């Protein structure tokens, strides 16, 4: 399958062929582009008119080059694997809901003010330690294990986080494991002492800020409804200063209120952040902040605008990474990972404050997907095995998608919320993923082929 696309850089079109099954990328001239469109899909009226103006000799040259690449297996390559089921027997990562309470009330929160529609609750140290024991005993031969402290707001239960980290580290050596810790925080309690501890102990820290002050304050309010951008930004900047080269992300959400989210990404970069992820909100269409399919052209144009600004800034002192424009065409994950995505329900699970296990953080509180408890283990292995069968190969809507090996089949939670099934198609999410992939590929080409 060959995907053809155009990216406009500095107002000029760049033409690309993307071979989906091999992961090969080609930059072509306008003539070869039209020949490829004709060969692999269909010319529209305007393209057909342009094609008719090309001399037979040039068309023959292009056809020969395309055929040559096909014979090398670099273009229109066949699918290399037709069946795959993930191993549902091991766990390598847990998202610990260390606290079902939050000191913010964000309008778009999928966790309903941090509670996940359950009682406000804090995980005990005993439950957290049982979760670590469960992870170690369920991890088989996997050596590198991950624990993500999530909420609600995990800094509201930092004492238990600290106990959990110490316990995991103490068990790691005897168990032959290595733990990586991540915390996702809204920064409100990220004072100097907490920042220093997180910097020392966390392998990754995700700081939630939505970009411009007006955008952030518009949707991320304190419990009493007050603005909080000032204190959050100060805390995040102070953390960034001590973080050095260690891993962190500033992570924002864009909604229907800021479809001009490029300005939010750049605002975060202007504040000194260089690892940035700003993502589309996921809400039902009747929510006032929801993004809709009718927004798609506007959102795609914004991703183009961001890509151009990204390319320019990365040449300057304002270099930064945008999470969804990072792509490594030379290495990247293995095909198994590309077929299965995040591993929700199989090797990645979430744990509620009471120790209940769910496929991922977005399923917590949905009793239909309650998989077991960290003390008693998995009681619904049948559900895990169902998730293990959700791969790029099993989802009909993935078959013809050029981005399928870059999203791993998409988010099962989003699919469930929009279609009623974890292997359904969340149409808007898929469309945006495709756009971000095209832009990532174009950025890769431009940055590696500088004039």
């Amino acid at each position, binding site marked *: 399958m060959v995907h053809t696309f155009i990216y406009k850089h500095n107002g000029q079109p760049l033409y690309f062929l993307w071979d989906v099954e091999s992961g090969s990328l080609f930059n072509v001239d306008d003539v070869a582009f039209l020949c490829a469109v004709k060969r692999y899909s269909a010319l529209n009226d305007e393209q057909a008119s342009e094609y008719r103006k090309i001399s037979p000799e040039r068309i023959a040259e*292009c056809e020969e080059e395309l055929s040559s690449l096909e014979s090398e297996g670099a273009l229109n390559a066949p699918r290399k694997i037709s069946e795959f089921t993930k191993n549902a027997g091991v766990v390598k990562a847990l998202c610990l809901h260390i606290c079902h309470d939050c000191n913010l009330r964000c309008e778009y929160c999928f966790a309903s003010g941090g509670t996940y529609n359950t009682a406000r609750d804090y995980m005990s140290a005993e439950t957290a330690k049982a979760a670590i024991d469960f992870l170690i005993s369920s991890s088989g031969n996997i050596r590198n294990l991950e624990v993500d402290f999530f909420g609600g707001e995990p800094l509201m239960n930092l004492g238990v986080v600290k106990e959990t980290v110490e316990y995991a580290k103490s068990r790691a050596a005897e168990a032959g494991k290595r733990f990586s810790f991540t915390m*996702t925080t809204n920064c409100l309690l990220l004072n100097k002492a907490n920042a220093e501890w997180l910097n020392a102990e966390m392998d990754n820290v995700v700081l939630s800020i939505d970009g411009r002050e007006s955008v952030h304050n518009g949707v991320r309010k304190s419990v009493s409804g007050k603005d909080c951008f000032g204190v959050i930004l100060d805390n995040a900047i102070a953390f960034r200063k001590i973080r050095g080269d260690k891993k962190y992300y500033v992570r924002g959400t864009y909604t229907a209120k800021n479809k001009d989210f490029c300005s939010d990404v750049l605002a975060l970069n202007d504040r000194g952040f260089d690892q940035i992820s700003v993502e589309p909100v996921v809400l039902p269409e009747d929510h006032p902040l929801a993004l809709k399919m009718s927004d798609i052209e506007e959102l795609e144009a914004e991703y183009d605008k961001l890509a151009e600004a990204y390319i320019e800034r990365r040449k300057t002192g304002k270099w930064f990474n945008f999470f969804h424009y990072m792509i490594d065409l030379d290495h*990247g*994950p293995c*095909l198994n*990972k590309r077929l299965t995505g995040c591993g929700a329900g199989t090797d*990645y699970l979430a744990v509620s404050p009471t120790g209940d296990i769910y496929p991922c953080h977005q399923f917590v509180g949905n009793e239909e997907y309650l998989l077991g408890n960290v003390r008693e283990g998995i009681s619904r292995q049948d559900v895990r095995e169902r998730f293990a069968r959700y791969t790029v190969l099993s989802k009909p809507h993935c078959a013809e998608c050029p981005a399928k090996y870059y999203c791993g089949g998409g988010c099962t939670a989003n699919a469930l919320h929009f279609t009623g099934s974890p292997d359904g198609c969340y149409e808007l999410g898929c469309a945006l993923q495709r756009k971000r992939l095209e832009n990532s590929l174009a950025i890769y080409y431009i940055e590696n082929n500088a004039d």
Partner: protein
Amino acid sequence: MKHIKAVSTKIFDKNHKTGCGECQASCQSACKTSCTVGNQACAKEEKILRETKEDK
């Protein structure tokens, strides 16, 4: 080639028989509401290097 320039070719061939499971779960990075795996690294080579170092 006159009309076509290869930017990157055939990456999936090189490593499609791996699947060791040592790489990062994608939701542990920055997503939390979407799914992106294309920007993740293969941990296998890194793991071999690290274990070799620790064995010494």
